[in-house]
């Protein structure tokens, strides 16, 4: 009986706080995506001709993000029945967009508006534990080109 109450409280906390956090996060993501829309980000490995002879450096953005208790519970149920695990889909979507935004933020700070050869990497650092998945790490990295070379103070900061 006592266990059940604890579970219900955790689920409620997870539901309300998780929903709030997700809404807030999506709002800020959409806002910042508009702000940095001017920075060109491409995934091809050959740089376009217009950046010829410009200086370049590696830039990266990463985020570790966790799912709330309620969604984890839903995912566990989903594991039983099979099908789309929507609660993890939104987690990964948020994390990936956030990582790309941080990448763009760093590039913007250094004065770049062209990013080439985007690579995304996903890993779960809490693997091997009892309550697996839960949190994911997304790393986004790309090569930034600088039209104005004097802005490049720390070329190797990752």
């Amino acid at each position: 009986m006592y266990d059940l109450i604890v579970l219900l409280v955790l689920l409620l906390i997870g539901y309300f706080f998780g929903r709030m956090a997700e809404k807030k996060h999506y709002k800020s993501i959409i806002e910042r995506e508009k702000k940095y829309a001017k920075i060109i980000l491409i995934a091809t490995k050959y740089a376009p001709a217009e950046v010829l002879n410009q200086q370049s450096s590696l830039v990266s953005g990463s985020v570790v993000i966790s799912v709330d208790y309620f969604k984890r519970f839903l995912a566990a149920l989903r594991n039983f029945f099979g099908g789309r695990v929507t609660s993890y889909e939104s987690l990964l979507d948020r994390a990936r967009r956030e990582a790309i935004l941080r990448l763009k933020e760093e590039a913007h700070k250094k004065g770049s508006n062209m990013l080439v050869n985007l690579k995304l990497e996903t890993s779960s650092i809490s693997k091997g534990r009892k309550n697996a998945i839960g949190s994911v790490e997304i790393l986004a990295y790309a090569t930034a080109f600088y039209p104005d070379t004097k802005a490049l103070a720390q070329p190797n900061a990752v």
Partner: protein
Amino acid sequence: MLISNLEIIPGKRIVKHLGLVQGSTVRAKHVGRDIMAGLKNIFGGELKGYTELLQESRTEAVERMQEQASAIGANAVLNIRFSTSSVAQGAAEIFAYGTAVILE
């Protein structure tokens, strides 16, 4: 030293290939961060402690790779890739590798 994940830098010619260079580091999280992460697992949201930890270790892996590259006389590392894996419970390995070259 130029570090890039491109294979070819536009406008620059590769004079000599010096082979693979790599750098890696294994980091564990400390207990305080673990407790915070446990709480975040209920509420959901970003685990800032982990983000920082991974960023620090990534910087270190790249630095080690750079040391290796400058030791063999390279002035650039191209086609860099990162990889993360969890070797043991609560410890993560960050690995960076690339091709050391001499650019003109």
